[in-house]
């Protein structure tokens, strides 16, 4: 009987998607866990000539050359000096590996469909095209990112590259 309960628990855990959440300023963002390859500490990188400001450069991830973007700059937030809590979230999207610099990683959360809502309209000029939706967990707002949109941007498009 107890094993039955365990099984139920296990299955209920997987209903709803899991997200890795990270912090930018006071806001909390979420990325689907399946897109997160690993999380590494902040490390130096080589600057890429004539790249947009938010592309910080490329780094060496065990022999692979991986581009790094600063999420603050990507979202037009104020630049912040990197410190001890700064981490690079290594994302894997459509077979490409990309690093995203964030202020800090906070948690892994499971959100059920009821805890998710569509992106509302904003009065001011907020870019909503990267946002998949909003999540609520323990009265905290989590902004769900559409990572494929962000990384599929023109800056990463091979065909548009000069």
């Amino acid at each position: 009987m107890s094993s039955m309960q365990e099984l139920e628990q296990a299955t209920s855990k997987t209903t709803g998607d899991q997200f890795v959440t990270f912090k930018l300023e006071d806001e909390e963002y979420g990325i689907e866990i399946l897109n997160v390859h690993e999380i590494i500490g902040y490390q130096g990188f080589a600057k890429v000539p004539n790249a947009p400001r938010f592309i910080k450069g490329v780094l060496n991830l065990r022999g692979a050359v991986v581009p790094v973007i600063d999420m603050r700059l990507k979202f037009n937030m104020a630049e912040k000096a990197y410190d001890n809590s700064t981490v690079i979230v290594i994302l894997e999207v459509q077979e490409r590996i990309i690093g995203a610099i964030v202020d800090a990683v906070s948690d892994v959360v499971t959100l059920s469909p009821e805890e998710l809502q569509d992106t509302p309209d904003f009065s001011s000029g907020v870019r909503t095209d990267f946002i998949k939706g909003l999540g609520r967990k323990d009265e905290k707002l989590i902004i769900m990112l559409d990572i494929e949109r962000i990384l599929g941007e023109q800056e990463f498009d091979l065909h548009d590259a000069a």
Partner: protein
Amino acid sequence: MDQETLLETFITEATELIQELEIDVVALEDSSDDVELINRIFRAAHTIKGSGGLVGLTAISDFTHSMESVLDLVRQRELAVTGELVSVLLRAVDLLKAMIKSAATGESCFEQRELEFVLELLGQFLPEREERVDTEEMLSTKNRKETSYFEIEMKLSENLLETGTDPLMLFRELEDIGEIVDIVVDARSLPDVYNVDAHKLYLNWRLVLRTSEPFSSIENVFIFVQDDSEISITDVSCHYKDGVDLRVADMRLGEILAEKGLVVSCDIEEALSSQTRIGELLVQNGKVKEEDVKSALDKQLKSREVQKATTIRVDTDKLDKLVNLVGEMVIAVARTVQQNVYESHEGKRTTQDALDMLQRISGDLQEQVMRVRMIPVEGLFSRFHRVVRDLANAEGKHVRLLLSGTETELDKNVVEQLSDPLKHLIRNSVDHGVESPGNRRKAGKPEEAVVKLSAYQQEGNIIIEVLDDGHGIDSNAIVDKAAEKGLINQGDDLDEREIYQLMFMPGFSTAKEVTEVSGRGVGLDVVKRNIDDLKGSIEVISEIGKGTTFRIKLPLTLAIIDGMNVKVGDEAFIIPLMAIVESIRPNREAVKTVEGTGEVIDARGEYLPLVRLYNVFDIETDKTNPSEALVVIVESSQRRFGILVDDVIGQQQAVIKSLEKNFRQVEGTAGATILGDGSVSLIIDIHGLERMAFKSFKSIQVSGLEGEAA
């Protein structure tokens, strides 16, 4: 092996065979009595036919069959080798290529009409008797001279004897049409002696027949028994080489014996469990005779020997990974050595010695691994005999293609990517370079022109030259043409090198009349682009009346380059060593401006445009004063120019990593590499950097202004 892998293998092999076939057929014209050559051609056609049939590509095997018939006549000296015959054979080779391409892609790459026409052309060489053979019959008709192996499995009806047929008769008939090289009797259904019915047949046979007769003649042998017996005939020629069954090499002794029906599997298991040598045991137990074991062992040994000579095919992807890893290792070792020197100024000599040894070994390992990817240019070069022959014939010229340095090895990728540009250059030489026989006579040259293709190594680079003894390139004609096209101004003072480089500009062509093969104005610029892609360079040397040489300089490999590590601000870049002429620290007076903005540097008496790397790449640095920094003079195929950098760190080998894989192409770079300390550094692409820096250069020049460096 399933059907698909079988087909894949066939296509790879057939493509290689056809390449060789083509080269050999072209060679046949000049050496028509080379018996070995004729045999090789025949064997190639035969192999394609055989394996084509095996994978069910009957169209291919039928077609090669008719080629083979003609080749057989040549082999028998019943047909003389003429230019006409070679042309027809080459046409057949082309069609065969198209047919194989069709099989590979699943699309139709040839026309049925062409097939019929080529068959007719081939038919002309055959005597009357053979000419009647239509394609339908070809399928089943094997040429009388060639040998095949058929495996025949006879499961005869129990009541065969009652119909008056004796199995012995069948064997005699088979012996009439060929030789039985292997036979096994299956007596498992034989009851014990008390229960034997003398009128019944309890035995089945499996045999291998070597014959030069077609499939149909074997079928004919069994025509009277096939109704109530199971007879299966398979063409197993591909498994037999020199009469040895190649499959046996991979089989265990037990399996061989079992297949021969000498033992049954339980006997083998029993024997195996006793842990003695299986052969001895089976003999001991009286299951098999000693001779049988010996013959099986012999067979196994022989087959293994025949197989030994063959090579392994390795996916180039695996090799790429290996090369990459070894490159990483070499860098890591270098880093360790450096670290050790740094950490222990005195003492730790033994560690240092060991590390030195490790470094040497890893260097050797790298070289060997790189060598695995290298193939001689011979295969590539020999293909051009055909190109020269066809083109010379079409234009009524006599041209001999000479090859030298064919043993020179190059990275497989480079060899493949060289095919198109080289083909173009050779066509160019035959088409525009060499004169017609009449004109050559007038010029006092032998009627037969020479085009020479050579390869050699020079200072860590590979040089490939296409040389002709034609009329040379008139540099005045190039200047006129370029001016006419608006590429330069009439009064521009260009040296010879610069003039010849004009030919590689898009839209440039000096051919007075456009011919079918070259001279459409697309061409040399494409060649140059191809060579640029290979990180190489191309230059022209020509003398009026004597001839022209196109010289291509290539790096040994694409995966690793020798570079100079330079610093700009906080960033490190690698400049390919091949492009570097020298590095200089200019004095205060060496840098001059033109019209206030364009900068030139005085490098040994020559003013060269100066490119400030921090400007082009948008990097912050304090070293903006050239006399405090360094200038690396580089040479692209267009021009020499100076690159201003903060400092030169040192020479270094760089394993090239793609930026595109995870990111995208970055203008002005040829990829990235990982430095000894684990950081990433971008590799500068000289041509790309040049394009970025001199972007405005061309447009200004065309509109009639003096060029300036951006």
